[in-house]
């Protein structure tokens, strides 16, 4: 399952796990990435990073979109399409199985898992794949890599490209508007959600915000409609899960 990376300290570089030196030095990698800083072309950036660790295929997914139908949550990928389609639901359910805290502790920690047996892989590709998660703003991303059988990926290099992938996503995110991903909830609605999550009642929130109790209830109804939730509890759970409060 998960390989421990705790031996990777700030100063010492770990002993290389194999003799295969990366295709380019780290300085060269940073130089090339710098050149791409303005371009917002995530596909080129991910290709570059995958090459650096010796992976043959990359897939970048954003988890805030995973609950929706279709494959919109895939930002960029050069995985075989059949594999992506087959894996979509798998990824979504794996994501909901872990808790927020576990996700917080897994940032930039490479984890390895096996693709389901019934999936037909292109020749020579390993059934094992590597996943690295990171967050940019409120969006959590996962970079998933496929590699040729026998290639051993270095933990240190994986962490580095995880960070650089986050830089790459930051180039794009900085331009994208922030409000767009707030599920179109207004500032006032978010404020109400925040206070409800703190255990306040409508009456108390009315006093805090200086507006009427009915207005508060209207805000909450509107939140429940927008988030397609049935009860207040579910609306709050939804907001906490999606880092809205």
């Amino acid at each position, binding site marked *: *399952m*998960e390989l421990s990376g705790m031996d990777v*300290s*700030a100063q010492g570089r770990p002993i290389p796990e194999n003799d295969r030196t990366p295709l380019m030095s*780290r*300085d060269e990698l*940073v*130089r090339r990435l*710098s*050149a791409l*800083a*303005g371009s917002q072309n995530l596909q080129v950036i991910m290709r570059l990073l995958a090459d650096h660790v010796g992976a043959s295929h990359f897939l970048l997914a954003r988890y805030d979109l995973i609950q929706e139908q279709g494959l919109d949550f895939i930002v960029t990928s050069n995985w075989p399409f059949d594999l992506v389609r087959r894996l979509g639901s798998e990824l979504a359910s794996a994501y*909901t*199985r*872990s*808790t*927020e*805290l*576990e*996700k*917080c*502790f897994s*940032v*930039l920690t490479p984890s390895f898992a096996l693709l389901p047996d019934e999936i037909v892989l292109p020749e020579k590709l390993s059934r094992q794949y590597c996943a690295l998660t990171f*967050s*940019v*703003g*409120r969006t*959590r991303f996962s970079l998933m890599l496929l590699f040729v059988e026998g290639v051993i990926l270095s933990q240190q290099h994986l*962490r580095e490209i*995880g*960070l*650089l992938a*986050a*830089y790459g*996503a*930051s180039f794009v*995110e*900085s331009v*994208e508007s*922030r409000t767009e991903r707030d599920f179109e909830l207004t500032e006032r609605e*978010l*404020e109400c959600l*925040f206070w*409800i*999550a703190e*255990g306040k*009642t409508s009456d108390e929130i009315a006093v805090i915000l200086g507006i009427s109790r009915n207005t508060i209830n209207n805000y909450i109804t509107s939140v429940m409609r927008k988030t397609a*939730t*049935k*009860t207040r*509890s*579910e609306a*709050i*759970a939804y907001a*906490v*899960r999606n*880092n*809205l*409060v």
Partner: protein
Amino acid sequence: MGYSRGGTADGPGSVQHLRLQRGSSRSDIFPKLVAMQKSLKARNFAVFRISGAGLPNKRKLVCELENWGPNAVENSNRLLREFEETLLDHVEMSLLPLVWSGNGSGSTMDAGEFSPLIRRLETAVLPFSGVVFPVRLGALGNGYVAFFADHLTLDAGSVIDQHVESCQIMMDLLALDERRSVPAESLSEREIACLQLAGDGRISEEIAEKLGLSVHTVNAYLGSATIKLDSVNRIQAIAKAIRLGYIT
């Protein structure tokens, strides 16, 4: 069932296990920061975390660790007066490191070929130069690890190494927090099951039917869970249970 504290809690990958891998006190984190400072050839460090997450106008940065010595309060306040807003906004959309050159005579910050990958801030107030690494773990534990000196010269290798390490530092701090905030009495399996279903939008009657209990029993479980989670009502209990990882 999603996740339970009992049984598999010691297995690899569990929260318990992740916690054990990390240092047991803040004094274990300090030497790591000193080593990072040395490798960046900086003079001081400071770790800031975001508190009051959620409500946009309530968020603030809190200095959790530093080695400024007697000037700590003054330096931290000066830094926050100058950059708090910028830093809070930045971590909402980007993970790129931030740097600035101090206004003191000869205070410099040279980012070399790394320049396109960092964001430069302007200051007329701070006498020292600095580099800050944003860390975004998720709903919890976000913030900045910062290093200061009169002259800072960054090279790509050390920026990447120290930024990766900064993430580890913030995870260490989060692990310490979580250890403290574990409820005095741990939640029972039934309480967790009721909370999970309530968070999924089920009303008490539905939960009762699903678990084969009476409505009163369900409400009692939700009530005791609320008390154990130090909450005033079940909604707050659900929010806390998700943040603490009892339910998903």
